[in-house]
C-alpha cells in the first residue's frame, strides 16, 4: 500500500469557519424532518435515516481503511453481525426463550445496541488478530474470506431464517418513545451518528490516531521508534468493526428485517465505495459518500430499472479523475471545504 495514495489528514482549517460549517450541517440535519414535512415529502425522512446509518458504517470503515491504511473487504460481516445481534435478541425475547441456553432476549434499544457493538467488536478482534498477520492483497482477500464464511454461516442458520432472513416485528424500544415513528427514529439515528463522528474525531486527533497515521505512512519507521504496529492496527480494526456493528443494529431496526444479504461481499464493496466516493481519510467524507450513493441509488432507481449502468460510469469517473473523492473535489473547487475538517 503506497502511502501517498491515501491523502493525508488535512491540516486544521481555520477553527471559526470549520465550526460555522459544522453548525450549519448540524442545523440542516436537525431541521430536515420539519422542512420535508413542510414541503410535503415525508418519505424523505426514512431516506435520510438510511444515509445516516450508512454514514456510521462508512465512517467506521474509514477508520481502518483511511486512517489505518487497512483495506478491509469484509466490513459487511460486522454490519451483518450487528444486525443479527438485534434480530436474534428480539426473536429470543418474542419466544420467551434463552439464546444458547443462558442469554435472555430483549427488545430494549439500550441493551441491544451495546450488545451488537460488543459482539461485532469480538468478531473484529478475532478476524483482525488473524488477518493482520498478512498485508496488501492478502489482507484484502483474507478479510473477504472471513466475511464470506460468516455469510455462508448465516445462510445455513435455519433456526434464524437462513437464506430468507427473519423479520423483527417491532423496532426496539427506547424509554417511552415511539420508535415506530419515522421522525423519532431519525432523531435517534442522528444522535448516534453525531456521537460516532465525535468519537472518531477525538480518536483521529488523539495520540492513538497519530500513531495510526504514522503506521499507515511507514510501518517500519514506527516499529523502529519503539511502537508495536500490530497492537495499534488491531485496536483500530476492532473499533472500526464495532462502529459497523452499531450501524448494522440500527439498520436491522430500521428495516425490521435481517438477512444474510447484510453480510454479502457486495455490501462490503458498497461501504468501500461510500468511503472512497466521499474521500478516504477525511472525517466527514463518509457522510458525503453515503449520502451521495444512497441518494443517487434512489434517484436512479426511480428513473430506470437499470440504474447500475449509470452508477458504474459515475464511479469509474470518480476513481479515475478525482483524487480524494467528493470532499477532495469540493475542497479543490473551494466549496464547502471548510465544512469537511
Amino acid at each position, binding site marked *: *500500500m*503506497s502511502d501517498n*495514495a*491515501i491523502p493525508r489528514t488535512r491540516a486544521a482549517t481555520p477553527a471559526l469557519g470549520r465550526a460555522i460549517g459544522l453548525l450549519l450541517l448540524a442545523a440542516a440535519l436537525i431541521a430536515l424532518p420539519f422542512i420535508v414535512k413542510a414541503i410535503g415529502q415525508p418519505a424523505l425522512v426514512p431516506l435520510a435515516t438510511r444515509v445516516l446509518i450508512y454514514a456510521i458504517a462508512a465512517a467506521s470503515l474509514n477508520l481502518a*481503511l483511511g486512517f489505518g491504511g487497512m*483495506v478491509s*473487504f469484509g466490513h459487511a460481516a460486522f454490519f451483518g453481525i450487528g444486525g443479527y445481534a438485534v434480530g436474534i435478541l428480539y426473536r429470543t425475547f418474542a419466544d420467551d426463550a434463552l439464546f444458547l441456553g443462558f442469554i435472555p432476549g430483549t427488545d430494549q434499544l439500550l441493551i441491544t445496541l451495546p450488545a451488537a457493538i460488543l459482539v461485532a467488536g469480538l468478531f473484529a478482534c478475532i478476524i483482525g488478530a*488473524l488477518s493482520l*498477520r*498478512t498485508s*496488501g*492483497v*492478502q489482507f*484484502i*482477500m*483474507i478479510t*473477504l*474470506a*472471513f466475511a*464470506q*464464511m460468516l455469510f*455462508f*454461516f448465516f*445462510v*445455513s*442458520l*435455519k433456526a434464524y431464517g*437462513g437464506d430468507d432472513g427473519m423479520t423483527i416485528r417491532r423496532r426496539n424500544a427506547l424509554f417511552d418513545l415511539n420508535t415506530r415513528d419515522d421522525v423519532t427514529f431519525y432523531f435517534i439515528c442522528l444522535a448516534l451518528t453525531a456521537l460516532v463522528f465525535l468519537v472518531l474525531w477525538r480518536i483521529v486527533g488523539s495520540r492513538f490516531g497519530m500513531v495510526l497515521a504514522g503506521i499507515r505512512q511507514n510501518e517500519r519507521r514506527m516499529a523502529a521508534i519503539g511502537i508495536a504496529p500490530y497492537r495499534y492496527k488491531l485496536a483500530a480494526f476492532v473499533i472500526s468493526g464495532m462502529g459497523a456493528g452499531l450501524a448494522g443494529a440500527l439498520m436491522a431496526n430500521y428495516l425490521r428485517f435481517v438477512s444474510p444479504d447484510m453480510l454479502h*461481499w*457486495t455490501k462490503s*464493496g458498497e461501504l*468501500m*465505495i461510500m468511503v*472512497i466516493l466521499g474521500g*478516504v481519510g477525511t472525517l466527514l467524507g463518509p457522510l458525503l459518500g453515503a449520502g451521495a450513493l444512497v441518494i443517487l441509488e434512489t434517484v436512479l432507481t426511480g428513473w430506470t430499472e*437499470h440504474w*447500475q*449502468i449509470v*452508477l*458504474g*460510469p459515475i*464511479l*469509474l469517473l470518480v*476513481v*479515475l479523475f478525482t483524487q480524494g473523492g467528493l470532499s477532495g473535489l469540493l475542497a479543490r473547487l473551494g466549496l464547502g471545504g471548510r465544512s469537511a475538517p
Partner: protein
Amino acid sequence: MTLVLEQLLNGLQFGVMLFLLAAGLTLIFGIMGVINLAHGSLYMVGAYASAFVAAQTGSVWLALLGGLAAAAIIGMVMELVVLRRLYARDHLDQVLATFALILIFNQSVTLLFGRQPLFVSVPPALNGSVQLLPGLTYPVYRLAIIAVGLLVALGLYLLINRTRIGMLVRAGATHREMVRALGVDIRLLYTAVFGLGALLAGLAGLMAGPILAVQVGMGEQILIMTFVVVVIGGVGSIRGAFFGALIVGLVDTSLRAFMPGLLRQVMAGPEADALGAGLASMGIYLLMAIVLLVRPKGLFPAHV
C-alpha cells in the same frame, strides 16, 4: 467407491475451470500489480457471446471462436481504456474501478439479453457418456473440459518457460523496472498478457455454458473462488494457480457432495442438509484462511 471417483472427476473438472480463470488473474496481478475484480465479467462475456453465436449460427466452431474473440477483444479494450490508468494507483482505487466495471458489464448484459438465464446445449459430438470403469459412466463433455484445461495448463507451461514471450512475462513479474530499462515495450506486453488472461477467462465461460446456466452474476460467483485459488496458490504464480485450483476444486466439490451425508448421521435430515451446505460453502474460505496464516505468501510464492 464409484461415487467417490465420480466426485473426484467433478472436482477435477471444476478445478481446471478455476485454473483457466486463475491463470489469467494471477498473471495480471503478478505482472501488472492490478487487482481485477472484473475478471469474472470476461468469463460472463465469453459465455454469453458463445451462447449468442451458437443460437444464431448453430455452429459449434463459430461459437467457440465468437466466445474467445469477444472475451479477448473486450479484455484488451478494458485494459487500454481503464486499467492502464490504474497501474500506478493503490489497490483501493483498483478495487473500486473494477467494481464499477462489474456493474457496467452486468447491466449491459441484462439490457442486451434480459434477466432470463440462457441454456446452451452440449455440442452433439460430445454428447453422451462413456463407461470409464465398470459401474462408472461419466459425461464426455466434462471429460473434454478436463482435457482442454490440462492442455491449456501444458501450453501455458511451455509458453511461460520455453518461449521468448514467456521469458519477458517471467522477467516482468519479478523485475519490472529492469525489463523496461532493457528496452522492452512493456505496455504492449501488458496488453498482450491482459488479452491472454481475458481469452482464458472467456474459454472457461464458454465451456461452462452447457453445464451451468448462462446468467448475469455468474462471473462474481466464480470470481471470489478464483481469488481464493490465486491467494492459496501464491499471487503471481501460474504453478500456484494450477495446484491451488485443483485443491479448491476437489475440496469444494467433495465437501458439497459428502458433508450433508456425514452430518445426516448425527442430526435430522433437513437441518443436516442446510448446515452441510453452509459448511461446504465455508470450507474453501477456511482453507484459504489457514493457508494464509501458515504461509502468508501462499503455497507457491512467485516472488521469493
